[in-house]
């Protein structure tokens, strides 16, 4: 009996120690990263506070596309440092999941790689009382065709060739079709390891849209988020794909520009029919966006991109991610914050800030249209 009581007190002591240590842990953490914010502004990502018209405060939830995750990260850091008392949380859960959560009324805005489908617009009417969900183009991006071939730093490809490579119709690096586009390059006699996304993604959808338009009939599948091509290998997410291209010799794949930059992968230039092949750079992406047509009506600014563009310096494989919010009937408690935040993100400072993170700042023609819509949200 005595022994047992002894044991109990020891157990209690351990519990007490655990409790005390966790309490002391609770006391020592901090949200204060001001030292960090200062470091951030030196790298140009935090905007001057004067440029931001702050909302009163409160919490704003958004969810959706992983592709714009880092862009929102830049924005909310800058916005948060200028406007104390606000908390913006963005969950990079994927476009489809983001739209669903938006349509269930769980988040104030969704980020998506593709505009709302008619069924999704209908569903959004349940949460947007008296209105519906609208697409606001916010983050421009481009998809680089990345490769890892020994002795080859520069590579030129065109639509049909890319389509055939990813459909296993071209299987060797020294295939005549590739050699014809790259006179003078030392292409090895090696098998092409084509890598695609194993998960469904907007990146795949945008690439296959390009292949369907510009592939000259070599891409026999409809554009879709699910990969349909034959053969090759797959990897999960842009992060997984980038890691594979880095690791596997003679590989080729497609990722957003920011992933190509941070992983230091070589990007192919695209021969579009312009006088010279177009490099995968933010400036060349912006040229394409400048020519984009608006397909939506009213407040809805869904874009139609010209994947078959032959303009000088216009990179054809681009993607735009939208912020989706209600035109009328947004949640009252976060409406001010939503408008204030989106006003900042589409402002010139906001767009310039993400330009340094591997995104394409939207051209003036487009951003002014979005800027005009945001104050009308209600």
């Amino acid at each position, binding site marked *: 009996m005595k022994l047992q009581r002894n044991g109990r007190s020891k*157990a209690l002591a351990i519990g007490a120690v655990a409790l005390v240590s966790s309490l002391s842990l*609770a006391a020592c*953490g901090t949200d*204060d*990263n001001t030292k960090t914010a200062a470091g951030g502004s030196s790298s140009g990502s935090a905007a001057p506070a004067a440029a931001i018209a702050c909302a009163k405060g409160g919490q704003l939830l958004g969810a959706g596309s992983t592709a714009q*995750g880092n862009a929102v990260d*830049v924005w909310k850091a800058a916005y948060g440092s200028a406007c104390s008392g606000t*908390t913006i949380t963005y969950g*990079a859960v994927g476009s489809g999941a983001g739209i669903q959560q938006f349509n269930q009324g769980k988040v104030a805005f969704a980020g998506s790689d593709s505009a709302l489908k008619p069924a999704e617009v209908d569903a959004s009417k349940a949460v947007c009382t008296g209105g519906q969900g609208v697409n606001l183009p916010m983050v421009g991006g481009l998809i680089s065709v990345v490769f890892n071939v020994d002795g080859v730093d520069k590579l030129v490809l065109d639509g049909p060739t890319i389509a055939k490579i990813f459909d296993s119709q071209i299987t060797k690096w020294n295939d005549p079709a590739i050699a014809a586009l790259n006179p003078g390059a030392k292409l090895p006699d090696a098998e092409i390891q084509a890598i695609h996304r194993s998960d469904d993604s907007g990146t795949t959808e945008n690439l296959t849209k390009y292949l369907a338009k510009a592939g000259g009939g070599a891409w026999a599948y409809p554009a879709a988020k699910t990969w349909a091509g034959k053969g090759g290998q797959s990897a999960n997410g842009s992060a997984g794909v980038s890691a594979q291209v880095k690791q596997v010799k003679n590989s080729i794949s497609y990722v957003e520009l920011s992933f190509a930059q941070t992983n230091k992968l070589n990007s192919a230039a695209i021969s579009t029919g312009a006088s010279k092949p177009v490099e995968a750079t933010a400036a060349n992406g912006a040229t394409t966006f400048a020519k984009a047509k608006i397909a939506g009506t009213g407040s809805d600014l869904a874009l139609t991109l010209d994947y078959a563009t032959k303009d000088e310096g216009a990179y054809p494989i681009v993607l735009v991610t939208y912020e989706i919010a209600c035109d009328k009937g947004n949640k009252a408690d976060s409406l001010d914050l939503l408008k204030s935040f989106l006003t900042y993100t589409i402002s010139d400072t906001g767009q310039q800030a993400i330009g340094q993170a591997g995104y394409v700042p939207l051209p003036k023609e487009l951003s002014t249209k979005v800027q005009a819509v945001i104050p009308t949200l209600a």
Partner: protein
Amino acid sequence: MSAATTTAPAPLLRRDLTTARLPRWAPAGVAVLAIALGCAIGAGAGLASHIQWGLIAALLFLTISYGLAAKVEGRRQAKDRFATSVVWVAFILAVVPLGALTFYTVQQGIGAINGDFLTHSMKGVVASTTADGGIYHAIIGTLEQVLLATLIAAPIGLLTAVYLVEYGRGRLAKAVTFFVDVMTGVPSIVAGLFIFSIWTMFKQGYSGFSGSLALAILMIPVVVRSAEEMLKLVPNELREASYALGVPKWKTIVRIVIPTAIGGITTGVMLAVARITGETAPVLMLVFGSDVINNNPFSDPQQSLPLYIWQQYTVVNNEYGYDRAWGAALVLIAFVMGLNLVARGIARWRSPKAGH
């Protein structure tokens, strides 16, 4: 006198009762020989992968020790030696990935861990451009969510196991057993989605608690099954002795059966905790992930360590992201290990001192 008595029968004893034995250093010697041969064959044949070298050496070790023992000591002893060798090889086989994994994680993660990393959140940090920020908010989130899940799952699981072992007869027990079995196969994302649907039905927002509920669903079957197994192993003699002393059944269970099995039960609970602590999918769906410290698990998004790792890997995906991810992984492993040690400590003090 003693010399006279021992000298005569000793050789006799050795001849009659024990056969020739290999020297004590034989297993070690065989191991060295096998490794040397394995390396030689591997290098000689130009095999690139060191995994093969190891496998060849292991096979050689098994065959040589069996052969040698069969020759010198006879078949029964040879089998015994063989079994011993197999167990040792299993040990080595486990140590290699264990060592590789631990070493890899520590090597990748140790650099990121410092005071700032442990005590700061990610509020206001642009994750992809600086190495600043930390995991404090994620530690708090994981602590609270796991604690809540364990508080829900451990009692339910243990009581269910008690019911199945001590009371369970008839259709209800069969049904419970059946469903516990099915439950071990619930993919984590399905558990998450189930709670998500309920939460949406009641118009509730994101919170750490909803994540805990999904984690509890994943925990319960592991707790039930391991606890059930451990309770079954408690000898009936103990129960009968207790009844014979007039102790009521419930007191027998609480005071005799559970304490006897407490070590195994703790192991089961810790396995369950270890399993849920690393879950990403339901947490992403229900807890949502936040950059700021939220001490209240019952409202508003929180963060958790596995989700934090996942975000740093998939979204940030540069050297800063990788550093933070591995640092957080190391903290997560250390956290579960710490819990494990504490739980075992408590279990040891609470369990009756065993006779053996």
